[in-house]
């Protein structure tokens, strides 16, 4: 039976979502700071594509390569909708829209984990 990667993947996405929420909260808090540039994380899809998955050792002669398993997402300055005269590029509507995105993805994520957990529990129970 194949090992189940779903929980690992879900927890990694959850970590990405919470980190993004923190970055957005920083943007909203600095909505009136002169010279502040709005920041954002790289999308989860890009982070996942760059992740070097280590190869499974299926034979005793295989050499294990321990690559960096997951690169942490970095916050970088993002192009905001507009820049005001003080040099601040935070747009509150844009940030709240992003926060809504995060919250929606998080609801989806926890829903998947919950239903998968229920499936596992069901199969364990019926095996008794």
């Amino acid at each position, binding site marked *: 039976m194949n090992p189940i990667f779903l929980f690992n993947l879900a927890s990694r996405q959850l970590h990405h979502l919470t980190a993004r929420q923190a970055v957005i909260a920083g943007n909203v808090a600095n*909505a009136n700071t002169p010279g502040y540039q709005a920041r954002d994380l790289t999308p989860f899809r890009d982070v996942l594509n760059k992740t070097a998955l280590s190869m499974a050792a299926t034979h005793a002669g295989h050499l294990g390569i321990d690559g960096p398993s997951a690169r942490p997402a970095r916050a970088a300055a993002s192009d905001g909708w507009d820049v005001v005269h003080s040099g601040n590029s935070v747009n509150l509507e844009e940030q709240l829209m992003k926060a809504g995105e995060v919250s929606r993805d998080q609801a989806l994520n926890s829903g998947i984990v919950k239903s998968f957990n229920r499936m596992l529990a069901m199969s364990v129970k019926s095996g008794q």
Partner: protein
Amino acid sequence: MIDPLVASSRIAGSGMGAQSERMRVIAENIANAQSTGQTAGSDPYIRKTITFRTALDRASGTAAVAVRQIGEDKAPFKVEYDPGNPAADQNGNVKLPNVNMLIEMADMREANRSYEANLQMIKQTRSMVSSIIELLRS
């Protein structure tokens, strides 16, 4: 490194603190919109301004906000002819504060809007936390 969700509520809290400080400065300006000096020819109340700065937290790499300074507006005072006023100079002119009600009102609206945005972030973070805790309950 602290949990990002905890960090985001803390950041939003710092934003709310900064905006309420701004609200206090606006309230001071509005309350003192007519405050003249005490002696003849003296300067009246000077309008206060507030600026923010980013308070970078090295441990979590997140950007909270703090008040940089509360300064004074350099705009000239309004002058009105009112010889009966105790603050009038020998020509009968009284200096009134450089507070413009319209600017204060617009500033108040903006502070209110930013405060609500921070509040929204806290609410959303809390709902995320509670939905994760909900996972354990199923």
